[in-house]
């Protein structure tokens, strides 16, 4: 039955597999090293022991790499893509050709060193990582693999389409701007936590405590400088992280799939089936909004657990360029992120007042607890009010030709564009105060990672919107 002989991975797989095994074992090795050093201080004996552990680890990982390379093989036949691996525990995976969505190639640093790629066999049910991952495949072998799949499923594994598919690349300049304006709080907080942990760990013994107290800033100004320094370091890390993640970003429309390539150290190529994209989110961060810049993300069923970078459709666009960009690459979801209907003017104070009161309370308590810094914490009240006002200005919605657009703001401005027929659920909600005022909130959900909501619409407008979302005009094919 097998028309292709089972093929082995490229020998570079030994290095790839050994390194991945080593990476898995890295934490125990580090712990052992740390324990050795902590036990007897940093002397020659501890160093020798540490090196020994390291050597054992490298040898074991290399052995494991060799064994896994020897025992791993793959083949393609009428039954699908077959993959066998394992020495003690044999594992055999077969993906039927009818379930293969495509062959993605990813070239990490090790793969590029040897001029090979990792091939991910993508299926409909899988995540970003393929159902089968071939860690190292040479260029000719990739061609053979594609040929073998193409012979049986002509619509996948296309290599040279007749017409150049629509493509957008991130220019170097835009990549730099994207990195400078990324301002990811999520990166900053762990970095701060790590830095404080490092400080507290670095001065474990008594001499250390003395050193540490000497190092500690002895005035308020010192503390502020230290904090500012940490923030600058964290920001620099965030910029570097974005530069690496988005280097060489390119997105291509390839039939029913979007191919997204990105990354400096770890070159990755992801193929997202268009029918699994339930929505597009236009995000304007605090640092980007003033310059009219935005990032575009996709809401994909099954990709919720992936990092924000993996959900990025394009890292940086002029706001006015978003609709043409979508029209070119993702016409199924293209819509204008602007010109939305705002909540009524009388709703404005409902955005502002609760925020201002909360700010005043927090500020007041801070004044009572730390009388030294009063009355500065009271500034929180106007700041919070401004935050509420910006939220009001950002809020809006539109339902046109079965396409829903909803914008809101929590620090960053965010606009969701989604066909009404693809919403996972939608709701209308009223608090007792809203009931009395005749206002209501509307909320929609598109994926695990996100939904959207608009607060304080006129109750009858919200009710009508809820009803219209209930019977969406089926302008796009339904997808699960």
């Amino acid at each position, binding site marked *: 039955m097998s028309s292709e002989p089972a093929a082995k991975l490229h020998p570079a797989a030994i290095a790839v597999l050994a390194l991945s095994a080593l990476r898995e074992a890295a934490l125990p090795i580090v712990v052992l090293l740390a324990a050795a050093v902590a036990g007897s201080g940093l002397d020659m004996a501890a160093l020798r022991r540490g090196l020994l552990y390291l050597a054992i680890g490298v040898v074991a990982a290399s052995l494991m790499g060799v064994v896994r390379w020897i025992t791993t093989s793959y083949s393609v036949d009428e039954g699908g893509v077959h993959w066998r691996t394992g020495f003690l525990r044999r594992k055999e995976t077969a993906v039927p050709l009818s379930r293969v969505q495509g062959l993605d190639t990813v070239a990490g640093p090790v793969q590029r060193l040897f001029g090979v790629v990792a091939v991910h066999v993508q299926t409909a049910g899988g995540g970003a990582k393929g159902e089968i991952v071939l860690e190292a495949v040479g260029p000719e072998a990739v061609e053979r693999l594609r040929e073998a799949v193409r012979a049986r499923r002509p619509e996948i594994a296309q290599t040279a389409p007749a017409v150049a598919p629509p493509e957008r690349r991130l220019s170097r300049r835009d990549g730099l701007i994207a990195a400078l304006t990324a301002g990811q709080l999520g990166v900053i907080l762990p970095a701060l936590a790590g830095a404080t942990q490092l400080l507290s760990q670095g001065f474990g013994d008594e001499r250390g405590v003395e050193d540490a107290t000497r190092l500690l800033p002895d005035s308020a100004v010192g503390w502020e400088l230290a904090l500012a320094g940490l923030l600058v370091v964290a920001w620099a890390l965030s910029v570097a992280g974005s530069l690496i993640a988005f280097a060489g970003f390119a997105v291509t429309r390839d039939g029913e799939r979007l191919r997204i390539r990105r990354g400096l150290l770890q070159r990755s190529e992801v193929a997202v089936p268009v029918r699994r994209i*339930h929505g597009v989110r236009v995000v304007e961060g605090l640092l980007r909004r003033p310059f009219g810049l935005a990032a575009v993300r996709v809401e994909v*069923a*099954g990709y919720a657990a992936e990092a924000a970078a993996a959900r990025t459709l394009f890292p940086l666009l002029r706001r006015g360029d978003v609709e043409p960009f979508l029209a070119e690459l993702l016409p199924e979801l293209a819509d204008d992120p602007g010109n939305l209907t705002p909540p009524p003017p009388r709703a404005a104070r409902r955005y502002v007042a609760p925020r201002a009161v909360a700010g005043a309370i927090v500020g007041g308590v801070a004044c009572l607890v730390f009388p030294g810094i009063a009355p500065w914490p009271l500034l929180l009240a106007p700041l919070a009010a401004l935050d509420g006002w910006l939220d009001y200005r950002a809020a809006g919605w539109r339902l046109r030709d079965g396409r829903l657009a909803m914008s809101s703001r929590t620090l960053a401005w965010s606009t969701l564009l989604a066909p009404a027929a693809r*919403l*996972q*659920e*939608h*709701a*209308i*909600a*009223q*608090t*007792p105060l809203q*009931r009395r005022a005749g206002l209501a909130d509307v909320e929609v*959900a*598109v*994926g*695990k990672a996100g*939904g959207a909501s608009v607060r304080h619409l006129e109750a009858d407008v919200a*009710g009508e919107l*809820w*009803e219209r*979302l*209930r019977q969406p005009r089926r302008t796009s094919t*339904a997808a*699960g």
Partner: protein
Amino acid sequence: MTPEPSRRLAPSARWLWRAQGLIATIPAVVAAGALRSQQGGAWWVLLPVAVLVVGVVLVPELRWRRWRYEVRDAEIDLLHGTARITRTLVPMLRVQHVDTTRGPLEQLLGLATVVIHTAAGTTTIPALETAEAAKLRDRIAALARTADEL
């Protein structure tokens, strides 16, 4: 306007929530005791009493009176909330699978919760009679399947 959903949860749902409210009172009792021994004064007793009144008397009754659900051929319609009242609609086409779960308290009271899974997470219909919950689960599963085939 679509008529509001009409089906209620099991009457014993109130007892489930009252029991949960009672459990929630325990930390309030502990906190009141600690505050009293530190700061003195008998007024701290009001803290657990207030939690008791809200959590055991008011909320379960209000919540039960409000909760309504309706499973139609093409959608699941839910109306719930104590202060903030929410009406949620889940299209049958979006339902991935349904199951029923029974916590220890629910088992004691002969109740079960129907959990509806979509790509966006889960939606629940809590505290139904066990037989009713099983029937509802099977019905939603069957409807979700036909919706997919359309």
